Every structure is written in structure tokens, then in C-alpha cells.
């Protein structure tokens, strides 16, 4: 299983901490009496087979045996084409969609066992969600929209105002407090959506394609601001997108889905350099490797541990793109520093080597799967 061998490694958050959110064997099946399919525990051993049997009976398995953990402060991105089940999974986590089977543990407590009342409390204090088309209340102005979750809790108006002043300035909406949604641009509307989701000071932050409805220029700007906000707030985030470049910019880890199933979970670079199958490879094919691979991925074999005199140093997390100008004629080798130690060096040869190897791996994954599909159709 691809997701097993690509558990957080290297740059991922420290594994000692208990995950903020754990999703275990999560299923969502639409159709008549989906529960009956889960009575036989043996059937769950082969989820793919179970899902295809359901499809034969005209049921729609939208999420099939989904497993993943989200660590404290991690940005976990779910990707996939439309209809791949990513929105369903996200909505199962907050029970906007009621899962058919499985467990969702928030701080170790199973959300699926919570009563309606408890769930409302959890939504009021622990979760925030941002929607693709903003989901703003048309009859409320900016400040009323942002304070809406607090209003529902019955918080007095003075306290509410104090709480939201912060988030309003965090998302840069000062001066627009009295505007109505229809008077704002798309980017501004989504700022309101973000502010609203942050007003309750949630621990778990869910974002459903938050920037997909925006123009490319605005989208990039919003991504920057999103990263800036996260750098100060350190929320645990689940972020849905279908734009791989967006995922690349923000993700700690990415989960790729197809037909309701998890295809691969890993760091962005893992997905590119070590795709689980042709679907993943196809998804990542247009990504420039030099922007994703880092100095740590291109170390020269058997290089010295100590920098020679005058040899420049680069951080292990620097992208190859950053190294290129320095290696292009000026230096023969760059020392790579991780924390307080030098872990090796990058040379022009090692860089080209690394790129070539990854490109080959990528091509192989696509070929291999290509031949499989050819077999299928034969």
C-alpha cells in the first residue's frame, strides 16, 4: 500500500506528538441501506473489491476506506479530480455529511459517536471551515458575517466585537466592516469567509477549495496571505484543492484521491519523484522538478562532511532552482547545511544526476501503468 511506505518522514512534523486528527477506515456510501454492507467484518479486508460490488448494485461509494492522520500544526492537502471524493471526505470530518462507516478521532475522541448537541459545541469551538463559493450570508454585512458563529453562541455584542477585530485585521478587511457580500470582490468575499472561520479560534481548520473561484493573480496573493496567517496561528489544516501547484506551495503533505480511494499520501516531492502509479505521475507531470526537489535530494555520493574553505553553504530545504545560478560556473560544489550540521554537498553532476533519475522514475511509472491499461482494454 502506497500510503504505508510514505508516512511522514524527513521534513514532516515531529511524529512523537499525538495526531490532531485521525481518520480510520472512513466510508461514505450513497444509495439504499448502505450500512448492511459493513456487517461482515471480512468484507473490509479488500475495500476495492467491496466498493466495486457496491457499484454493481447501483450504490455510490464516495469515500472508500480512507485512512490518514493530520499532525498538530500540519497543512494536509487533499487532492483529486472532481468526483474523486475529496469534498465528501472533508465533510465527513465535520459530519456535514454523515459517514457510513469508520472513525474520525479529533484529539483522540471519536466524532462519529458524538450527540447532535455535542457536535454543535465542537463546531462552535474547535472547527472552522472555508467554502469554495464563500457561503456568506447575503443578508449580513462583513462584521455580522464574521461574528455570526459567535452570535449563534449567544456571546454579548461587546465581546464579539473585541474578538473579531483581530481576525478582521488579520485578513486585511479593515474599512469594509459595513459592506455587504454583494458589494465585495471575490477575493474580499473569501477574506470574509476566512475571517469567519477563524473567529471561533478553531483548532482544526478545514478549507474546501478556498481559492478555486478566484482569478489566478488574486489566488496567488491569497495563498501567500494564507501561509502568512498560518505562520502565526499554527492551526491544524485540511485543505482541498485540485491545483497541484497550489498544493505544492502550501502542503506539508498531500493525499491524492481517485474514485473515493486514497492513491498516495506523502510530501509533495514524494509524489513527484516517487509516484505510486500513472495517475499520480499524470497529476504531477507538469511540475518543474527544480522547484520541488531540494538540496537534500541531490547530494553528491560520498562527499566530504566538512566544507572546504570558502565553499558557500546552502540550506537543505533550498530548492534546486535556487542552487542553479550558483552552480552555473561560479562554484563547483555547495555545502548543504541541515540545522547545525553539514550533511553533504551538491555538485553540478549530482544535481543533474538527481534530476535525471527522478525524471526516469516518473516516466517508468507512467509507462508501467500505460501497459496495464493496454492489457485491460485488450
Amino acid at each position: 500500500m502506497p500510503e504505508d511506505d510514505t508516512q511522514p518522514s524527513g521534513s514532516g512534523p515531529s511524529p512523537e506528538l499525538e495526531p490532531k486528527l485521525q481518520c480510520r477506515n472512513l466510508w461514505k456510501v450513497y444509495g439504499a441501506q448502505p450500512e448492511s454492507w459493513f456487517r461482515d467484518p471480512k468484507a473490509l479486508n479488500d475495500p476495492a473489491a467491496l466498493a466495486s460490488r457496491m457499484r454493481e448494485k447501483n450504490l455510490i461509494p464516495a469515500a472508500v476506506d480512507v485512512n490518514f492522520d493530520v499532525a498538530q500544526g500540519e497543512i494536509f492537502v487533499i487532492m483529486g479530480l472532481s468526483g474523486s471524493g475529496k469534498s465528501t471526505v472533508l465533510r465527513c470530518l465535520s459530519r456535514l455529511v454523515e459517514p457510513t462507516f469508520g472513525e474520525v478521532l479529533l484529539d483522540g475522541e471519536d466524532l462519529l459517536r458524538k450527540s447532535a448537541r455535542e457536535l454543535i459545541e465542537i463546531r462552535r469551538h474547535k472547527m472552522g471551515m472555508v467554502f469554495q463559493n464563500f457561503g456568506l450570508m447575503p443578508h449580513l454585512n462583513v462584521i455580522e458575517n464574521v461574528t455570526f458563529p459567535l452570535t449563534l453562541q449567544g456571546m454579548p455584542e461587546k465581546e464579539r466585537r473585541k474578538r473579531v477585530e483581530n481576525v478582521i485585521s488579520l485578513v486585511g478587511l479593515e474599512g469594509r466592516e459595513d459592506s455587504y457580500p454583494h458589494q465585495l470582490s471575490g477575493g474580499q468575499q473569501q477574506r470574509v469567509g476566512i475571517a469567519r472561520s477563524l473567529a471561533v479560534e478553531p483548532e482544526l481548520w478545514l478549507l474546501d477549495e478556498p481559492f478555486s473561484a478566484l482569478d489566478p493573480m488574486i489566488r496567488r496573493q491569497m495563498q501567500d496571505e494564507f501561509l502568512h496567517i498560518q505562520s502565526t496561528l499554527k492551526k491544524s489544516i485540511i485543505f482541498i484543492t485540485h491545483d497541484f501547484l497550489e498544493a505544492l506551495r502550501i502542503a506539508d503533505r498531500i493525499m491524492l484521491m481517485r474514485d473515493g480511494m486514497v492513491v498516495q499520501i506523502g510530501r509533495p516531492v514524494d509524489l513527484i519523484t516517487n509516484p505510486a502509479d500513472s495517475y499520480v505521475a499524470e497529476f504531477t507531470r507538469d511540475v518543474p522538478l527544480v522547484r520541488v526537489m531540494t538540496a537534500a535530494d541531490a547530494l553528491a555520493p560520498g562527499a566530504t562532511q566538512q566544507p572546504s574553505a570558502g565553499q558557500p553553504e546552502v540550506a537543505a530545504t533550498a530548492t534546486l532552482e535556487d542552487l542553479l545560478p550558483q552552480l552555473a560556473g561560479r562554484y563547483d560544489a555547495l555545502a548543504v547545511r541541515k540545522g547545525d550540521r553539514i550533511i553533504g554537498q551538491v555538485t553540478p553532476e549530482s544535481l543533474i544526476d538527481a534530476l535525471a533519475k527522478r525524471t526516469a522514475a516518473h516516466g517508468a511509472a507512467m509507462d508501467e501503468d500505460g501497459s496495464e491499461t493496454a492489457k485491460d482494454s485488450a
Partner: protein
Amino acid sequence: MKGIRQLASGGPAWGALIAATLVLLVLREAAPWMIRFPEGWTVPLTPWLNSGMNWVISVFGTYFQAFSDLLSVLMRWIRDGINSLPWAVIVSLVVFVAYVVSGWRLAIFSFAAMFYMVLIGFWTEAMNSLALVALSVPLAVVIGFFTGTLGFANDRADRIIRPTMDMMQTIPAFAYLLPILLLFGFGPVVGLIASLLYAVPPMVRNTTLGLRNVDAEIIEAGRMAGATNSQLFWRVRVPSAMRQILLGVNQTTMAAFSMVIIASIIGGTADIGWEVLKSIRRALFGESLLLGLVIALMAMVMDRLTAQIAARDTSGPEGLVGGARPRTLWLSALVLAVAVAALAQVLPFLREYPAAWEFYPADQLNAGIEYVVTEFAATINYIKQVAFFFVMLPVKVGFEQTITPFSWGFAFTDTLKTGYGVLVLALAALSWWRGSWRRAALVMFFGIMLFVGISGMPWPTLIAMATLLAYQTGGRRLALGMAAGLGFLLLAGVWEEAMLSLYLCGLAVLICLLVGGALGILAAESDAVSVALRPFNDALQTMPLFVILIPFVMIFKIGEFTALLAIIAYAIVPSIRYTEHGIRSVSKEVIEAATASGCTPWQLLWRVKLPLAAPVILLGLNQTIMYAIAMLVIAALVGTSDLGQRVYIGLGDGDFGVGIVAGVGMAIIAMLADRMTQAMGGDRM
């Protein structure tokens, strides 16, 4: 089964039916029952219904009476309340509201409209009508909102509510005035209950629709914000649906008002509708015009005010002039009312408008109309004659009875008849030869129908053809509905009246489609035409139905031609609007693509715009038919002999059975026409 379907979908079935029609027509001397359904074969529905009604009254009468008394008390309070206020207070409050929701223009218009009522001295009558509306609208809104919410929340309830609402709106108003009269007794309360029944459906529909159409993300956002179920409903769903709900309030207000006016036909209400009706009946046209204008103005003010409130909603309070807060507004309204009331104590003319200052130019108007009618008597008569002899009579009783030396200037000799037959056959053959059996069947059908008239067609084949058509457009269910509906008309003994309704309605719809379609096309092509037509369309649509009769009765007097014109005037509006809207909504890209491939403007219209706009135009046809049927009953006031007249007779004689059978008959025609046009639209979309 497949064989039957093939037969039904092809020409042979039509050919057989047309041949059968011809055979029946040849045999009609020998078997007259094929044209006129024998009375002995009908089911005596009317006495059954009457005895049923008597039973209901004897058993439940007291409860209804109690309810009626309760409403009467409420109504008297409101009426007295309004009447005790000086007119200046009410006028200034209305003007204030108009200013707040819209601005100066509506405020000035409202002032002019309200002051007109004072000026001509019919303030009290207008306020009596207003009192009815003021009670029935809030009731209808509350009932409609909760019924609509029930329909939204519960699918099973919705499946019951929906057809019930259809029924309540398609059964002509006059038909249920009588049962209300019998159950609740005489008096203004009848108008109140009738207007409640008529005004609830739009509120129900809009509420269900609005609640249902709230964006899923907004609901999810509300749930993620931690809303409980009741918070989700009252603070997220209802406010988000508010625009649609307020649109419902607007439609409900208009329906309530129009019904209040119609209900005054039973009298004893001392309201403005009664005054208009009285003057129409006494042929006092100046008075009818002046008083009809009061109704029209009231309708327009109510419509603009409620429509503005609905339009304003989503833009939030900043849409209000001055951006004032609601509390401030209520307070200002109160202060204004008190101030004006105080002023009225000092200046008595603000309380009771002095009779000496009234301006009621009815006599002058009468003289003017008299002059016009006598001056242009020849022209008016000519128009009437032409329409009557060359259009209406042929459809009604056919060429064979219409063409006489007296009407057409020559007799319909056997030679001419043969010539006509050959012409029709030739046209049909030509259509057939060009590959369209549908058109051939159509030519044959209309050829026969114009010869014997719609009332001379044999009912067995007419029903068979309608059923076949229903089967082809909408499948088995529609065919069954068609056969059952027409069967009811036949067995209930109202077939002849139904055919006459069909004749008036069909003719009106056809003319609406042609004229309205042409106007719609013009309006779509030219902004100037569109702008010029808009106020007429608006006025015709907001006008309570029988005000529309007034100008036509004035000029053309009583008769079917006047009825036809009134029906057209009312039903043409959707034809114009939907045609314009349909053509204007054709995508720009398609038009550019067509222009780029070398379409002339004419080709563009006929080959691109009209075909693409067809579904919308068909929707307009549907609305046109519904409007025409609604107007049919009102048109009975000016002398027709169709179902509408039966409804009216039933009301006049206090004969519940007669009125309700005819009313249900009209509802059946309306619903069948509705389903048929919808099925045709479904084909195309």
C-alpha cells in the same frame, strides 16, 4: 404494445380519426347525438352537489358561521380603525413608506395616486377595500409561510400541497365565491375568505421555492458555525430565502387585492369594487372610468411598494434612503402620523376633505365618450362586424352557417362548398407530398372545423383526437388525464359551454400569440420599443381583472367581441414578455457564430433566434392560456355564453351545483392546457 405505439405516433391514426370525423359529419342528420351530447346521458351532478352542500351546511354551518363572525369582528376593527384616521395621516404614511423603500419618484407617485381618491370623493370606499386587503394579506402570508415551510420540510406533504395550490388558483374565483357565501353568510367576510383562498398559493409556492433554493454552501456554513436546527432555519435559511419570500408577499398582496375587487360582485361591501361594478352595470362609463382608475392606482401603489421591499432586501439596509436603522424609521413614522393627526385637528380639511373641493368629472367624461362613440359609430360598427362575421362566427359555428348574403354578401352554394372542400384537400395533399403528415392532419382538421364550427364538431372524434395528441406529446398519463377530463365535461352536461369557452379562449390565445409574438420580437430587437411597452405591460398585469373590461365596454358595448378584446388585452402580456425574454436570452456567441456564417437578419431571426427561444416562448404560451382562462370568467360579465357564464349564473341564482360544475370544468380545461404545453416544452428543452 409496440404496434399500438407505432400506430399512434404515425399519420395513420390521424388519418383514421379525420376520416371518422367526416363520416360522422355526413351522418349527423341521422344521428344528432354525435354533435350534441344527449341530456339524458348526462350524470345529474348538479343536484347531487347541491344536496351534498346542504348536508355540509346543516351539519357544520354553525362552526363556519362562528368563524365568519370572528373574522367579521376583526374586520370591523380594522375598517373602523382606518376610517377613524384622518385621510391625511394615511396618505402621509403611505408616502413616507414609499420614500423610505424607494425614493422621491415613488413617493410622488403614491401621493398623486392617494390624493386622487380623496379628490374624486371615494376615499371611504377605497379604504374599505384596503381594510379587507390589510386583514387578508397578513393572514395569507402567515398561513402561506407555514404551509410552504411544511412543503419544504416534508416531501409527502409537498405532494399534497402542490396540486391543492394548483386547484385553488385555477378554479375561477367566481366559482368559489358561492360555496363561501353559502357557508359563511353574506357580507364583506366572503370577500375576505375568497381573497385569502386566492392569495395563499403564491405565498406557499414562493416560500417552498425560496427555502429550497438556498445555496447548499450557505447552509453548510451555518452548520459549521454551530447553528442548532432552529437557528439554522430562522437565522440562516429564512433570511437567505427572504428575497423569494418577499416576492411571494408581493404576489399575495396583488392576488388578495384583485380577489377583494372581484368578490365585491356579491355586493353589500360598500367598497370600491362594488362602486365600479354598479356603474358598469348602469352603463355609466365616465363613473366606471374614474372609479376603475382608483382600483388601478391602488393596485399600482401596492405593487410598487411590495416589489420595492422585495428588491431592496438583498442589498441590505443601505438600500433604504438615508441608510437609517429600522427602529429610527418606525419612530419617524409614528412621529409623522401623530404630527399630521394633530395638524388635522387644527385644519379640518385634512380630516374630512370638503365636498365642495371634490372634482368628479364623470358627466363631462360621459359626454366625451358619447361624442366619440356617436362620431365614430360607423367605424366602430365596421370593426365589430368584420371581426364578428369573418373571424369569430366561422370559428364558432362554421362557414356553413356564417356565410349568408346578409353577412358575406353571397350565399354559400353547393359549388362553393365543393370548391372549399377541394381547396382544403389540395392543401393537405401538398403538405403530405412535402413530407409532413402532421401539417396535412392540421390542415384537414382546421378545414373541417372552420366549415362546421367548433360547436359543430362531433364529440367522439374530438375527444379521440385530443387524447391522441396528449398521448403523443405527454405519454400515457397525459392521455388518460385528457380522456378523463373531457369525459367529465361531457357527462356533466357542459360540453357545449366548454366548446364555447374553447372558442373564445383559443381565438384569443391565437391572436395573442401572433400580435404578442410580433411585439415581443420588436421589443427584443429594439430597446426603444421595449421601454415603450413596459409600462403598458406592467399596468395590464397589476390591474384587477375587471377594470380591463371598462374601456372595451365603453366603446364596443356588451357582447362577445368585447369579451374577446378584454381577454386579449390581459393575456397578451405574457406573450410579449416571454417572446422578448426568450429572444434576448439567446446566447451572444451563437448569434455571432450565425452572423459570421453569413445569416441575413431575417434568417437570423427565423433560423436561429426563434428556434432557440422556443422553449421560453412556449412557456409564454402556457401563461397566455392560463391568463386567458382566468379572464374568461370575468368576461362573462359582458355577455358570453360559455362556462364562465355558467359560473356567473350559478353565483347569481345561488345554485351551488351549477357554479361549481362549470368552475371545475374551467379548471380542467386550464390544467389540461397547462400540462399539454408543459409536455411540449419538455420535448424541446
